[in-house]
């Protein structure tokens, strides 16, 4: 591992965050999500601010990943999934029948929990997106790949082995490669589902630094189980929990509280949030 990572550029605590997202890039309004007849997520209303990092936290199974996948229509790939309500991206409802989900995903990229590089070379992994989307690049493809790898703080580690298989990298390097691959299509928003859960503390720190760095150009939405991580990197935090249905006993996820990260972690207004962040959840 390289030790070239700068410490966190600015801790969230010292950053001034407006009380409400000023110009939200994505807004979920009355979002209800079902898998078949199972009501997975109930009535979520959330706004994700531009150039902010929004964290979604909560106990396992409360629907964080489900909500995240709805934001770029990745849930279309699950045959049984159904969405009610609206998700707007710059004011356009992405569930409008006229909207092409492929186009949505070109604007809203995604990084997954388990590093999933393609079984291709490091170079080809990053070049994949620009190639399939037919992007018009200002620079050459080589320069663009270098730019992405630099952004993902991976360049120094891989610049001499770009033609080698992505599987020759460590797990942490693979995850940063996946981030480089995601920014290669120049999305506007990056969704990250527990991007550090498979990584060691050093690799995690590298990815966290990267998120903070990327915030200047992108809007980032991250799902995490690591509350220190949410506290360290995010500007706003949404806390979800699951509530059992009285009749069926199914656990439906819902949004409990959404506020500035500093407020959520120092002065939450809901008892359930306080119990969860202080570890008294049970």
């Amino acid at each position: 591992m390289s030790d070239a990572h700068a410490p966190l550029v600015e801790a969230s605590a010292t950053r001034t965050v407006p009380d409400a997202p000023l110009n939200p890039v994505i807004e979920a309004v009355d979002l209800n999500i079902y898998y078949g007849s199972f009501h997975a997520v109930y009535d979520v209303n959330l706004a994700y601010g531009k150039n902010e990092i929004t964290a979604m936290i909560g106990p396992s199974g409360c629907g964080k990943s489900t909500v995240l996948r709805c934001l770029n229509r990745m849930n279309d790939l699950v045959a049984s999934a159904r969405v009610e309500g609206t998700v707007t991206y710059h004011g356009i409802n992405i569930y409008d029948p006229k909207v092409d989900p492929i186009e949505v995903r070109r604007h809203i990229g995604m990084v997954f929990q388990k590093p999933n590089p393609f079984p291709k070379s490091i170079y080809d992994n990053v070049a994949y997106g620009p190639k399939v989307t037919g992007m018009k690049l200002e620079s050459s493809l080589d320069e663009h790949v270098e730019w992405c790898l630099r952004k993902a703080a991976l360049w120094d580690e891989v610049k001499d082995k770009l033609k080698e298989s992505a599987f020759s990298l460590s797990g942490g390097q693979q995850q940063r490669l996946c981030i480089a691959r995601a920014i290669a299509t120049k999305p506007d928003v990056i969704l990250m589902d527990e991007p550090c859960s498979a990584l060691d503390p050093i690799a995690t720190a590298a990815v966290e630094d990267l998120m903070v760095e990327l915030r200047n150009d992108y809007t980032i939405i991250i799902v995490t189980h690591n509350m220190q991580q949410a506290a360290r990197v995010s500007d706003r935090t949404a806390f979800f929990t699951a509530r059992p249905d009285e009749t069926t006993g199914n656990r439906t996820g819902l949004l409990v509280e959404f506020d500035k990260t500093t407020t959520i972690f120092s002065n939450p207004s809901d008892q359930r949030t306080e119990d969860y962040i202080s570890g008294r959840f049970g």
Partner: protein
Amino acid sequence: MSTTLSDVQDGETPPINLGPSSSRLGEKAIVGWLLLCASLSVLITVGIVAALLGDTIRFFQRVPLSEFFRVGQWAPWQGDFPVFNLVMGTLNITMYALIIAIPGGLGAAIWLSEYASNRTRKIVKPVIEVLEGVPTVAYGLFALLFIAPMLKSVWPTWLPGKLGQEPELQFAGAAALVMGVMLIPTIASISEDAMRAVPSGLRQAAYGLGSTKMQVALKVVVPAALSGIVAAFVLGISRGIGETMLVLMAAGATPNASLWPNDSVLTMTAFIARTAGGDISHGSTEYYTIFAVGSVLFVMTLGMNMIADFFVRRFRETYE
């Protein structure tokens, strides 16, 4: 310093016995049986090669290599032994069959693996696997009685040159067309297995980057499954080269050195079947031709597998 088990045990702990609790004879017997099965298949293979080799050598004691490998008309009954026309016959039919079977099989596999709904796949996959088991004599009859006359009647005779000539009752194209269709299930089924084994995380990554369904299939899934797909092609080619009944029935019996689909050809396999089934005297030179041609067939299939192996190694994209 060496420590034995009894040194470790001091007087207070009860003695521990870590030796086997029984002789496990049954287990040893089963392992022996498995070993026997494995060696049997190796022995049979070696036996076939040895039998082939012995009689092939006897053939070449009578007919020089230069005669066997010269370009010329195959007519063993009058002392002409160039295998060239038989090889051409096999190449002719296999080539046209693959032109149909490879795109057809790969297309079917991509559709099944990436486009079909789970319900459709659960119905279609077993049907395809049943089709693989249809006896080739059934395909042969179909080619002879239905496809050949039909192709003959609609043959584009307005085409210039050789291709415009109406074929005889049995011809390469009819056998190749049916063989191509016959190979589609084999290629489709094995390729589909390989494509389904590609982790769904790779597909999700590709969709997440804004790929279309076709891009996911062709740029991510097919390259990741390439070694399995090439294996399917090789199996298809080997089956095509080795197919006997269908070509015996539908391709004719004239050993033409022709790559035209409207010519009658005699393949290596069809020659072997005809000659072995006819009344030839054991020990005659004609009898030994069977083994010489069989060896050529064996070497071609082996070479095919080696080329495929090379390609798989060279272009494989392994995922964990």
